[in-house]
């Protein structure tokens, strides 16, 4: 049975394009142009994956994720955006999205990302990897939970390679580890991003401009 995908984007033209690209391989069960409709329909349809735009009127992608997560815990979210705004993207991930890709992504890569998210893995685009490295940069006074507040050296290596544009497979080869291990590292980074109380995460955007 093919993976059931729901699309949320207020740009109909873009939505139509994604639908055309994905409909061969996946079954597109529906699409919503606004936050409220999307939440209602996703709750009813219970799709496997929701592709959701970060920037939308009435609360944006975060509102959709938050509106669904409690009701349908099995639905997985993949954030999709043209935005460069790290705060918004990080906020989406912290709300529960399992990955972030930019809208300029190649169709084949997007399909791959949907498959990966369905399987429970995290999907990091180069840009998201950069955002995360930035968010966890610097030494942290480890008063809270050092394990959650720092990335390991290996996790940083993986993120840097992703940020440099390498696919998981190439990352694995470069570090002489298996793809499964790469996926484990990325999932662990995702978990840290979602659970860490590192206040830097909120503050980092203003910090990164000051050298």
């Amino acid at each position, binding site marked *: 049975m093919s993976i059931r995908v729901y699309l949320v984007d207020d740009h109909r033209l873009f939505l139509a394009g994604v639908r055309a690209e994905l409909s061969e391989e996946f079954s597109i069960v529906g699409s919503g142009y606004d936050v409220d409709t999307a939440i209602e329909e996703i709750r009813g349809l219970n799709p496997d994956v929701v592709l959701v735009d970060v920037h939308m009127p009435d609360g944006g992608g975060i509102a959709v994720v938050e509106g669904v997560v409690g009701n349908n815990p099995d639905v997985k979210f993949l954030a999709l955006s043209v935005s*460069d705004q790290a705060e918004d993207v990080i906020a989406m991930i912290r709300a529960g999205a399992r990955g972030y890709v930019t809208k300029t992504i190649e169709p084949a890569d997007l399909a791959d990302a949907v498959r990966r998210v369905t399987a429970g893995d995290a999907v990091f685009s*180069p840009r998201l990897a*950069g955002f995360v490295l930035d968010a966890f*940069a610097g030494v942290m006074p480890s008063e809270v939970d050092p394990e959650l507040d720092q990335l390991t050296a290996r996790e940083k290596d993986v993120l840097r390679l992703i*940020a440099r*544009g390498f696919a998981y497979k190439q990352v694995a080869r470069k570090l002489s580890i298996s793809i499964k291990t790469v996926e484990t590292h990325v999932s662990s980074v995702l978990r840290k991003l979602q659970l860490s109380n590192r206040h830097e995460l909120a503050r980092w955007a203003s910090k990164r401009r000051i*050298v």
Partner: protein
Amino acid sequence: MSLIEVGATGREDFKVNQRRRLDFRRRHSDRVVAGVAGGLADTLGVSDAFVRAGFVTLSMVWGLGVLLYLGLWLMELDRVEDIEIDPVAPHQALGLALGFGGLMLLLGVGGWWPSNALVLTVGALAFGTAALTDRNMPGPLAALVDPTVDRPGRLRMLIGVGLLIGGLAVLSANVGPIYEIGPVLLAVALTGVGILVAFGPWVTRLARDLGTERRERIRQEERAEMAAHLHDSVLQTLALIQRSDDPARMSMLARHQESELRDWLYGNLPLDGVDLLSTALKDAARRIEADHQVPIDVVVVGDHPLDESTRALLGAASEAMVNSAKHSGAERVSLYFEADDDELVVYVTDQGKGFDAGAVADDRQGITRSITARVHRAGGEAAIDSVPGEGTEVLLRMPVTAT
């Protein structure tokens, strides 16, 4: 009345109506309250700051300034526009001045002139301020020491300061104890209340009119700014895309435009005028992307100001990007920049055809050499790693020098 059209900018056709002398309109732009004083200044051919000072001073004569202002406002209630007027000729100005002086004398003779001290003081203060704040003048202190300020400017400033000091002197010498101003201010206040009672409805209408007008004006200015920007960027690009029949070029144009528009919308501008290496790298990537029609993905972690040694890094990174875009045949190029406390690191990665470092064409070797030499001179390191069939990666490192 002649109508001259100026279309020099091509963006909007500004119509400038050349009016005959002694015509009067409330100004639309560059005004403080309703554009009356500004309009009058245009008509009289004097600086608007002085006209405003005149109104303030006359307000001390039983509110005459306010009355005049409201009167002129009512006269031109529906006529607000920016026009270019020939200022009155000198003999006309003299006539107006004499007439006005006569009116003032008449008030004096009739016994309606208030305390000289008050009018003179406020007048001196108002005109002094006007002289000091006149648009074409730099700040007072700067003017005193700045040799480039022309002599009339300096003279005007000295007069302004003199008037201010004089005004204060007159106030303290003639009025004596401060409570003596009381009755005069009371009289002004009473007159004001009287005007409010008599002309209340009109005044509220004027106030409402002013509020709507101001909002409308702000909205129009914002629209004009946005229109100008969109015209220069998005509309131009859309036009180019329509004319192009090469899909690669179209998507490149769209991509370029997208990142430029985003920068404009979200204001990715350097802080405090400091040029940042990240911004410079993004700009370089965008330029190379447009020149060579290959998308460049830029990921930036941390930042560093653009200085002598980081400029070398920027130059080397740009060369590496051009190199990849031109020769690798890859569909996209990645630029990764990371700054931490000790070191700046740049990776330029492509997954193109790569090359054998031992057997490269001379011109290409020249480029790789120049990248390396450039970074070395600035105290950094460069490593070029290429595998035929898999791609090329250029690594540039630069230690952060303590500043």
